[in-house]
């Protein structure tokens, strides 16, 4: 199915694997006694959206339209900060700005790096 924003609304396997409700910030933060309302990656995500828009790679209005459509469909049950992240990556994959294979590979590398620190 194709939405009016031109984003593919089909589910993406890599992102589906990440949909763990037990790992969202609204669950994790109280578990660790953290009162910051946003996860540590939220500001970076906002900046990334601005950068993509500034460079013309993904205009803000296109992203917000797609985000709305994905929030009402594929990621309806996901809370806001995680939903915004998943929606952005969904759009980037849908537009071919990054590939699912590259992203999966890079995620393994990033996790390995963070865990070794």
């Amino acid at each position, binding site marked *: 199915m194709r939405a009016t924003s031109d984003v593919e609304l089909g589910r993406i396997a890599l992102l589906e694997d990440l949909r763990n409700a037990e790992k969202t910030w609204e669950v994790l933060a109280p578990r660790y006694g953290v009162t910051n309302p946003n996860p540590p*990656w939220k500001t970076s995500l906002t900046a990334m959206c601005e950068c993509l828009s500034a460079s013309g790679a993904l205009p803000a209005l296109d992203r917000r339209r797609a985000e709305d459509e994905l929030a009402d469909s594929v990621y309806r049950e996901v809370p806001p900060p995680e939903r915004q992240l998943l929606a952005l990556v969904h759009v980037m994959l849908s537009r071919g700005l990054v590939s699912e294979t590259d992203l999966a590979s890079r995620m393994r590398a990033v996790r390995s790096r963070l865990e070794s620190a």
Partner: protein
Amino acid sequence: MNHTHKPGDGGAERHAAPMVEEITDFEVLEIAVRELAIEHGLFTAEDHRRFTEWTESIGPAAGSRLVAKAWTDPAFKARVMEDAVQACKEIGIDWAEPTGFGTPSDYMNLRVLEDTPTLHHVIVCTLCSCYPRPLLGMSPEWYRTTNYRRRLVRWPRQVLAEFGLILPPEVEVRVEDSNQKCRFMVLPVRPEGTENWTEQQLDQIVTRDCMIGVALPRPGKTADVHPVQKARRPVQGSEHSGEAAHEGDK
């Protein structure tokens, strides 16, 4: 759950510790996609750092200062109404930051909407989530929801009542729809009981929600608290009424 916010704290309370002691897939995903985007030349690490720094620097305290100064300095208020972007420089806010021409999401055109005892403004972005970020910081999550965006323009009194703001019928409600070419901010009426207050005292009661228009400033109220329950006492006679819908028209 209630959402609270105090003006002057940069838009969201930030705490250095304690931290969540585990690495989530979401954190990994954000880093991974950013690294790939930089490698693919979609943007640079330096640009990302600049936007991150700017994002962390903005908050509603700037808007509070602008309102307090406008309340106490008629000449400044006149300049705000004439050219708000220019007047913002007087309180240390340059809409051209961080690139020299603003951000892609903050078009450099701001109009300040002055409330009167018989006219109340409230802002929305029906298209997406346009918001005067250099003055108010990042928009609250509820401002971005389709629920707020779709309903405010049709049933403004109903939606305002859900924020606890019940306006008398003689007060006209005007909804202003932000767009990619213009941002809006509300200049509320200075409340009674603040006649001899300083600017610093005044800016403490100008919360973010007062500048969106879903709350009114009042002495002693220095934080926004949002009920998530729908108002049990809806505005009299305005349930989906033509009158309410008409008031939402711009």
